[in-house]
């Protein structure tokens, strides 16, 4: 069956199809009122009656950010209904006398309490007041609650109260969807657990309805042949629609996760291919070096960057809007700068770019939709770095107005005091330098945070604008290698296509690690917890008889007194030796990440057990080899050229310098081709700028490897 990755973004719905070693790409405008419409239309256009689909969606994200989710109620232990409202007591901004929070997901009056209490050993000190639930059901009914989160203190130690309350309420209100904190996130820290459970409850009805509608529409479109549908979770693993509908909090960062999965998969495949082409001796040396990847996804309003030091990193400490989400998500750093960021001359004498963005509407000046202030995209256009004819393949609804962009940048140049014939170009160069400085900071930050030097990384640009800026960023960061995937504009959809079918589960352990492992430890509690989590994960992944699942375990450990943990791999099967191995790995990780360890000096605590399961037996999708066999580059006619403006050097530093640059159509490139800058490489939905002094070579998967000619 063909495999399809479908990424629904704010503007476009992207399709990548892999069928019998052939790759196809399709792009449609997103249908915001019902995202499934564009999906079904795309499958029809692609002529695919049945396929294995992995879908990244923004239904949950949008519902949260736009506060359009269900009317959600919260039931807590008596005395603690305000835990959600108080949060961690910190205010959003340090220096502002007036501050606002986004509207609460649970309105006042929908935060309910019931008498019950469990202590820190898991013992019941106040039994659940079951008689009170009748009245609570009545309150929920009269308040027209559409979804309910149940969060009791210490339910990760004693889930029975939550389960019992849920069972009784189900009888009274059979239609009301319930999210239990002991199922969504059985970990300590009541605020984070509450917020995560409430997020789940808030988006659950909407996501469930959407998935039901999508499945129905796809079945109808397929003419009775069933599609296999899976949804990409924020942790980079795909999951079936039934599980996705139960735990939609796991989907909120689905789209960006696809980009990182796709970028890392492309880099891995290219590295493996390069390795197999090496001599045995060179291979040994090369394989010792991990594949460190920095992903750089520059879009219209924001830019996502992620560091992947040999593997994709996840974190359980993300936030969405102003709420903590304690479920594993791919560790991505976002800065509010992109192609739509507005350039302006401030009163103090500096040229600024952002934080205001023209967004998609009105968009940059060149979109001709009423935008008046020049943006990064306008600067790229004025410098000849965007081909108006090829923008979005020339078939988007956007006609670029170069004159308008030039007028806006000329006005900015006048304000900056520039004179002469190339005021607009000079201003545009300045805008790009400033925009790149913001990106450079973000990339440095994610590297330094993990203790990595960006110079040891391969930079992977994607998104509409990433490939335009990547060479100047590589220059600034001292990154030696850039790898541009074959289709940077739809890399997230590729990530969805290649994603493993996998999910994870966790549970608080909270006891000294020495009690669980080593010479005197008894690992029984850990073994039991691991079995329970493996069972839960397997139940979510296995769809038919014969499906097999492989497990990875991790143990979050910390030194006593710390309030943050590191996840150490826990070998399977879990036994005393496995725990000892995890403890040893923790000391090493601590040293690597933080620069020191306290082995033998401080007690180690086991905080959380994590289990990730992956469905076996699914062939890993790979980029097909690009078609060869056309005429070699030397015999092809020379590409057309156009004028692109760069920054002059030497005495002309800072002055715009026009250079005749080759204009390559990426679709016409073939493996082995080598191109020299200055050149512009255009394709359907993305444009790559190769500055003077850079060369690009095409590998057999149609990736472009960029480097400076001198290096």
């Amino acid at each position, binding site marked *: 069956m063909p495999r399809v990755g479908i990424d629904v973004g704010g503007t476009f719905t992207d399709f990548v199809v892999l069928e019998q070693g052939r790759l196809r790409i399709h792009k449609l405008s997103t249908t915001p009122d019902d995202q499934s419409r564009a999906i079904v239309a795309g499958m029809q256009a692609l002529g695919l009656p049945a396929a294995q689909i992995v879908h990244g969606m923004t239904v949950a994200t949008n519902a949260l950010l736009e506060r359009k989710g269900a009317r959600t109620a919260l039931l807590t232990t008596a*005395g*603690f*209904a*305000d*835990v959600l*409202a*108080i949060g*961690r*007591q*910190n*205010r959003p901004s*340090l*220096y*502002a*006398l*007036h*501050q*606002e929070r986004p509207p609460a997901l649970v309105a006042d009056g929908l935060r309910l309490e019931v008498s019950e209490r469990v*202590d*820190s050993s898991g013992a019941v000190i106040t039994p659940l007041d079951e008689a009170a639930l009748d009245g609570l059901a009545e309150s929920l009914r009269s308040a027209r609650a559409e979804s309910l989160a149940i969060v009791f*203190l*210490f339910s990760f130690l004693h889930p029975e109260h939550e389960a019992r309350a849920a069972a009784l309420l189900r009888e009274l209100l059979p239609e009301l969807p319930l999210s239990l904190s002991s199922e969504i996130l059985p970990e*300590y*820290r*009541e*605020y984070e657990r509450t917020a995560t459970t409430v997020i789940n409850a808030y988006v659950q009805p909407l996501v469930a309805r959407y998935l039901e509608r999508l499945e129905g529409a796809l079945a109808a479109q397929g003419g009775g042949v069933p599609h296999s549908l899976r949804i990409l979770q924020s942790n980079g693993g795909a999951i079936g629609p039934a599980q996705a509908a139960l735990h939609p909090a796991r989907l909120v960062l689905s789209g960006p996760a696809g980009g990182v999965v796709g970028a890392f998969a492309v880099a891995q495949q290219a590295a493996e291919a390069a390795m197999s082409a090496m001599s045995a001796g060179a291979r040994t040396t090369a394989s010792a070096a991990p594949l460190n990847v920095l992903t750089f996804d520059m879009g219209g309003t924001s830019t996502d960057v992620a560091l992947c030091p040999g593997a994709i990193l996840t974190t359980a400490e993300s936030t969405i809007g102003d709420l903590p989400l304690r479920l594993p998500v791919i560790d991505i750093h976002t800065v509010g700068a992109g192609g739509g960021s507005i350039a302006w*001359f*401030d*009163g*103090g*004498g*500096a*040229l*600024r*770019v952002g934080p205001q963005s023209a967004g998609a509407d009105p968009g940059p000046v060149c979109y001709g939709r009423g935008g008046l202030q020049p943006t990064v995209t306008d600067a790229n256009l004025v410098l000849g770095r965007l081909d108006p004819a090829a923008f979005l393949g020339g078939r988007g609804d956007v006609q670029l107005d170069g004159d308008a962009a030039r007028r806006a940048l000329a006005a900015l140049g006048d304000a*900056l*005091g520039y004179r002469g014939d190339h005021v607009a170009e000079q201003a545009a160069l*300045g805008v790009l*330098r*400033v925009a790149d*400085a*913001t990106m*450079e*900071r973000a990339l*440095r*930050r994610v590297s*330094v*945070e*993990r*203790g990595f030097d960006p110079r040891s990384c391969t930079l992977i640009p994607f998104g509409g604008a990433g490939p335009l800026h990547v060479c100047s960023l590589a220059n600034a960061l001292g990154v030696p290698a850039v790898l541009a995937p074959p289709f940077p504009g739809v890399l997230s959809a590729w990530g969805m296509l290649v994603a493993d079918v996998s999910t994870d589960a966790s549970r608080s352990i*909270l006891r000294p690690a020495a009690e669980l492992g080593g010479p005197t430890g008894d690992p029984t509690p850990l073994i039991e917890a691991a079995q329970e989590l493996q069972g839960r994960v397997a139940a979510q992944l296995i769809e038919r008889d014969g499906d097999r699942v492989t497990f990875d375990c991790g143990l979050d450990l910390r030194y006593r*007194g710390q*309030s*943050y943990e590191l996840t150490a791999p826990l070998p399977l099967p879990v036994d005393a030796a496995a725990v000892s191995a995890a403890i040893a790995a923790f000391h090493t990780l601590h040293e690597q990440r*933080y*620069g*020191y360890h*306290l082995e033998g000096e*401080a007690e180690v605590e086991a905080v959380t057990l994590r289990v990730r399961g992956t469905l076996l037996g699914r062939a890993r999708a790979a980029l097909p080899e690009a078609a060869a066999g056309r005429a070699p580059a030397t015999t092809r006619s020379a590409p057309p050229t156009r004028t692109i403006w760069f920054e002059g050097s030497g005495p002309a530093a*800072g002055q715009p310098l026009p250079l005749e640059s080759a204009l390559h159509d990426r679709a016409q490139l073939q493996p082995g081709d080598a191109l020299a800058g200055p050149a512009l490489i255009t394709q359907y939905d993305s444009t790559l700028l190769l500055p003077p002094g850079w060369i690009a070579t095409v590998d057999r998967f149609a990736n472009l490897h960029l480097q400076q000619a001198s290096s």
Partner: protein
Amino acid sequence: MTQPLHDHVAADPITLELYRHRFSGVAEEMGVTLRRTAYSPNIKERLDFSCAIFDAAGNLLAQAAHIPAHLGAMPASVRTVLERMAVWAPGDVVIVNDPFAGGNHLPDITMVSPIFLQGERTPAFFAASRAHHADVGGMTPGSLPLSTEIFQEGVIIPPVRLYAGGVRNEELLALILRNVRTPDERRGDLAAQRAAHAIGERRLLELVATHGRDEVTAYAAHLLSYSERLTRAALAQWPAGSWTFEDLLELVDGEQLHLAPIRVTATLRHSEHGGVLGGEVTFDFSGSSPVTQSSLNAVIAITQSACYYVVRCLTGEDAPMNQGCLTPIHVLAPEGSIVNASAPAAVAGGNVETSQRITDVVLGALAQAMPSAAAAASQGTMNNLTIGGVREIDGRPTPFAYYETIGGGMGATAQGDGLSGVQVHMTNTLNTPIEALEMAYPLQVTQYALRHASGGDGLHRGGSGIVRSYLFLAPATVTMLSERRAVAPWGQQGGEPGAVGRNRLLRRDAVTGELREETLYGKFTRRVAAGDRLIVETPGGGGYGSPD
């Protein structure tokens, strides 16, 4: 004498902006490194630290993760260090925590190191970092005691070289570590600060190698004037004139309540620089109480920080944080007063409580100048609660100590209601989760809720305080350092004041066995038995505008 380059070479608007990113980026990477490698939760989770770079003359060039209390204190520390250290060698690292030498309280240890350019004999830049260490000795764990002189608060470190020419002074380190409760953590945190300095030095040297010394130093100076221009322009939007405001601190002497005034006169002046209108502001604290016997004395750095904080709130964060933002702000505080304490006054509470009242009076004075930009008073306290004692673990008596602060109401503004249940102004630390607290200490939290209707009424309501109730499961000593239990957070423009806070203790009478309730002052120490309860209700914020 040659003129500094920036005087005759105009700043290029693009290069200026690039240097804003470059210098801020260096400070930011130092901060990320410090946070990553630190041990103390205060640094790692509560972000109670700052990193900065300074020019050769000690001007602040950029500061990252600048918590309000460090705004004035970082430059003050570096200034003192530069005055005391005549000669610098590459590899030197100086540490200092003396509040009377630029510190603000003892747990904040500041590190300063020189950055030498190749072939030069004097430093071209300095890197500095300040971090709140979890314990530096003294009367109580956490080093924030109810003290009466500084010597009770922990180890005092005047500016001394921890490293000389790259070699660590092991004897000095041993002396410091012997005086703190958790030496391994201190060693780790100091190492983290040094790691941050190494990153700062490397990145600055890279900048100079890429762009040349002349450009880097010229644009360092340009950025200072740029921030100063933006700040002066923002201050010029304020009306000229002079306004005075006074508020009270609640001192408890024995069982007696004394109110100590803090008074400020804010004077705004406009002036013209090269045809551009600019403003500057002077805060004169004459009329404030003399130094007290309590720990509520603030050193001058705290008073400056509070003034800088309020100005930054009112002018916005557009100007990159450097010396230029501070130049148009003048702080005059009489020596020996509660807002400019001299040795050997106790200062532990000055940083956490007095700093909040200084903020209030500065806000109150400026509110008269700009009613529409002002805010009503916020809770004005951090509600510092320390619970310590000895309990049995595996049959062995084991000491425990727990410290937390509690949020309250924020004052309302012309734009809207105040936030509820948050830390205000000079602090923004996170709470301890109840589930973490109960697992670690013999305590049970029986209620944690917003304190409804505690915000002052008004056109816009003040934020609500918090109710937090504790059940003690073992005998303990409870110490509370809180404010606004007698003098309410004021409203603004006809808004009602917020409710004062309340500290109540319910203790079982040894004879009758009945629970008896006692309402306590803002500052107290009591022995409690298992089964006793403490109920803390924190103040609400003041309202803005008349409620009608």
